[in-house]
């Protein structure tokens, strides 16, 4: 059976390494792709069906919410979660309006698991 695919987008290589560790240890039925910024994320998502995207908000160039909008244009069924320590009301409202969730930094295996459960629920 083909593995499900997730994309982590974060300019911090440390953050990406931590997420990779969580996936390696806890989500063996998933393939994890990495991107360091929005541009790379959009390239990787091109023509490749994804089930989950974890997107940092504060990145050089395009921010995470703008990236989420563009990803949803390409893949409307994609479950996207904004990963940020900086959760503000206006940002929350905008995220809700486009149908994306939040994961509060620091990210953990448990938080990713919750996001995946919402995917199948």
């Amino acid at each position: 059976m083909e593995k499900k695919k997730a994309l982590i987008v974060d300019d911090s290589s440390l953050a990406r390494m931590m997420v990779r560790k969580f996936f390696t240890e806890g989500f063996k039925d998933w393939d994890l792709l990495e991107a360091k910024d929005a541009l790379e994320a959009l390239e990787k998502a091109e023509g490749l069906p994804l089930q989950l995207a974890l997107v940092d908000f504060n990145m050089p160039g395009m921010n995470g919410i703008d990236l989420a909008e563009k990803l949803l244009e390409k893949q409307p069924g994609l479950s996207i979660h904004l990963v940020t320590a900086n959760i503000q009301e206006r940002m929350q409202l905008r995220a809700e309006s486009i149908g994306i969730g939040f994961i509060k930094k620091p990210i953990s295996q448990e938080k990713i698991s919750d996001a995946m459960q919402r995917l199948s629920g």
Partner: protein
Amino acid sequence: MGTRIETMDAIELDLLAEAFNLGLGKGSAALSELLGEEVQVTVPSLQILPKRPAIDQCAKRFDTEAHTVRQAFVDTKNASTFSGDAFLFIPQASSKILSRLLSGSEVSEAEILAELGNLILHSCLSSLADMIETELDSCLPEVHLNRTSDILIEIARNKNRCTGATGVEGATQKENQRRPLPLQDRVLQMGVQFKTLSREISGEVMLFLDLSQLPNLTVRVRDAVHRLVFG
């Protein structure tokens, strides 16, 4: 005692940047709640620089047009793993608006800035300390109205105790420039700018980490990287 560690590698610097980012994020969210509007934050910049030029450059940028909140800090758990100064720079115009929005005339501008500094700077420092599993002691925030460049230059002078052990004394200026700077003459500078969506209020947060204890700090950071990534 000499050290072979002259600098941190990319992933170690990344950890410090991420810790700073986390702290800033929490501080910004709290500020946003206070002000009732979105606070936008830049991606943190992080670089290792010669101390005196770094501080001089900062002083020149702000001159007398900004107020400064300074919070000195030192690690108390691990015999000074790191120490340094955290700064919040607020342009005078932004400070006036902040005072008006947050208290009217009941509380002085200096007190508002002290509270803001405590909120934002302490959040950054706590995040750093948590990330490398240490405890730090930070002084009460000092507010300096209209004296940003003076304060920075005072700090640079007080801490800039470059000793003669490097053998610099007596050398020509050209020879001095070729010598690698001793660790105590360098800082790790982390900075971020923020502004409200209305652009009425803006400011900058900057941390200067004293690198004279770099080997100790590097050990703590490497331990943290190992713990987080390889757990």
